[in-house]
């Protein structure tokens, strides 16, 4: 008993000392983001020095990613981020897809007969390489523009911080930002809209994400999911998972703020990026065709629409 108590005292004392030595984040501290590489952490973003435009990827972030091949044209990597409370630790899952080598399809999935959203990663087709929830939704239907198999299924939504992604059969991805509504009429096979826009005009962070009071809650933390495109034309899917407590609470909707997520996408080299539905909706599955192995990050609720990636 004495031994146990001594052990307990020692560990408790150690915890207290560490807290003092390491300097717990103070209330006045501005949020920062650090990334782990080979057990070393480097801070690469500070809210009070946030770039207005990401002209290139941030080497401290890209070097921390060890890419793994999933299939032809699909790679993925994970990394750990350290941020401000309560998102002390966030696991970043990054999937990089070459749209010339893979094919994107949308699945609109409503339950029969209730009509309620029915899609989860369990409903991803067997041939899918990557499946992830797409767009945003309020009730049963996705928000905004939806084109499936070349046919417009839902008309465009309006919002200054919205972005539309339009994909054609050749693998060209077009981004249409905000209210321009200059949507391509022909040649679009798959398209959807989402919000808020994180990056536009070759890596610029929208004004509404740079200062509060412009319609976006800049302090809200949540599990995040975003899609972007880098300067080599590759599509990036980025998901965050709460990774404090040794990953025991991965499903908790805690994570980066919207400006922090814009920084993550910019640091990964995206020139365009938009948030997808995060929080309890965020879910993704990766399937390696060679081995049949899957990696799953389930969500807490069913969603109406998914973006499915197949080999070409």
């Amino acid at each position, binding site marked *: 008993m004495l031994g146990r108590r001594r052990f307990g005292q020692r560990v408790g004392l150690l915890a207290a000392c*560490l807290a003092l030595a390491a300097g717990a984040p103070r209330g006045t501290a501005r949020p920062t983001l650090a990334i*782990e590489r080979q*057990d070393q952490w480097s801070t690469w973003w500070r809210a009070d020095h946030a770039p207005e435009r990401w002209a290139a990827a941030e080497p401290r972030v890209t070097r921390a990613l060890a890419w793994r091949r999933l299939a032809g044209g699909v790679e993925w990597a994970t990394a750990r981020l350290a941020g401000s409370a309560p998102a002390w630790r966030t696991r970043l899952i990054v999937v990089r897809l070459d749209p010339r080598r893979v094919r994107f399809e949308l699945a609109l999935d409503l339950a029969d007969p209730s009509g309620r959203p029915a899609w989860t990663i369990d409903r991803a087709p067997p041939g899918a390489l990557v499946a992830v929830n797409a767009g945003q939704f309020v009730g049963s239907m996705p928000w905004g523009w939806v084109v499936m198999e070349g046919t417009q299924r839902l008309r465009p939504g309006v919002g200054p911080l919205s972005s539309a992604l339009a994909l054609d059969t050749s693998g060209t991805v077009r981004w249409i930002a905000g209210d321009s509504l200059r949507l391509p009429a022909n040649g679009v096979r798959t398209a959807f809209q989402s919000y808020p826009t994180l990056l536009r005009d070759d890596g610029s962070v929208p004004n509404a994400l740079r200062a509060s009071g412009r319609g976006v809650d800049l302090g809200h933390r949540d599990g995040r999911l975003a899609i972007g495109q880098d300067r080599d034309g590759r599509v990036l899917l980025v998901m965050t998972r709460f990774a404090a407590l040794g990953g025991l609470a991965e499903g908790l909707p805690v994570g980066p703020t919207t400006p922090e997520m814009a920084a993550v996408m910019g640091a990964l080299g995206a020139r365009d990026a938009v948030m997808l539905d995060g929080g309890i909706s965020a879910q993704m599955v990766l399937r390696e065709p060679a081995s049949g192995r899957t990696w799953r990050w389930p969500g807490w609720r069913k969603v109406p629409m998914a973006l499915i990636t197949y080999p070409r």
Partner: protein
Amino acid sequence: MPVHLLAAVLVLAATPIAISPAHAGIRDLAKSAKEKAAKATGQKSADHPCTGMDAQFSETTIELTGDVLDKLLASRKATQPMRDELAKLLARRVTIQREIEDLRGKHGDAIVENENRRAEFRSCMNSTLEGIKQRKVQTEMANTMANPRSAEKLLKLTAAFNDAQMKGDTAEVNRLQREMGSLFDATHADSLEAEKQCGRMPALHPATVKVDALNQELATIDEKIRDLEKQATKVQADKCKLTKGQIAMAWERITMYVGKSKNDAKPCGFSAAELSALSERKDALAAELEG
């Protein structure tokens, strides 16, 4: 609780807020202490308490007090007429989807064959019209160059085109391209000549016509569903005096709570007052999520 387990929990509680990224190695120490503690007590990770996971309220995340929950439930009830209409639309949606599946099931091969024949016709017409256009270009060029006035006009047009290209004036390039191209565009007579070679476009298969009409109806219904849901959201926001974002986040957290409760797991990220209010209304909230 055994003392060493308490100590391990203390370390876990202190670690996330205390360590800076540079001291991440400490995480391993904490993890090791936690693992030792869990091993000693046979505790499973799923039983881990919500240490350090206190509720965080913000502009979007509001505290789910009894009053807030009652307002949310009442506002959902106020949308009942819209939900009834929604149920009718959703039922029709299901019927349409079944009809489309039936048609594709019964006529799948015939539809594909019809689409292939139509594609062959389009391909034949395109190549024949291109041949006609090339012949026209050669003839027109020969005529134009033989006439000094029209030759000068063509040279001016070409110079303007090159100039616009040099300046990167895409709009002007497109305009001039259209102007020059229009000289040789296919006429009705050209189409008739091509049809002599390719025959007539095969009519759409009747099943395709029905599927297209059903898809059109489906798109109309989907828009109606979306409009109704938009109305319902507005009614809820007005009734609750909350923003749409606050309502959405409240229901997200309720969904998490109900989901966790179903699995008999301890819901994390809720205040004590919230847990009490949610527990009192658990059945009503679950019914609302199912309904």
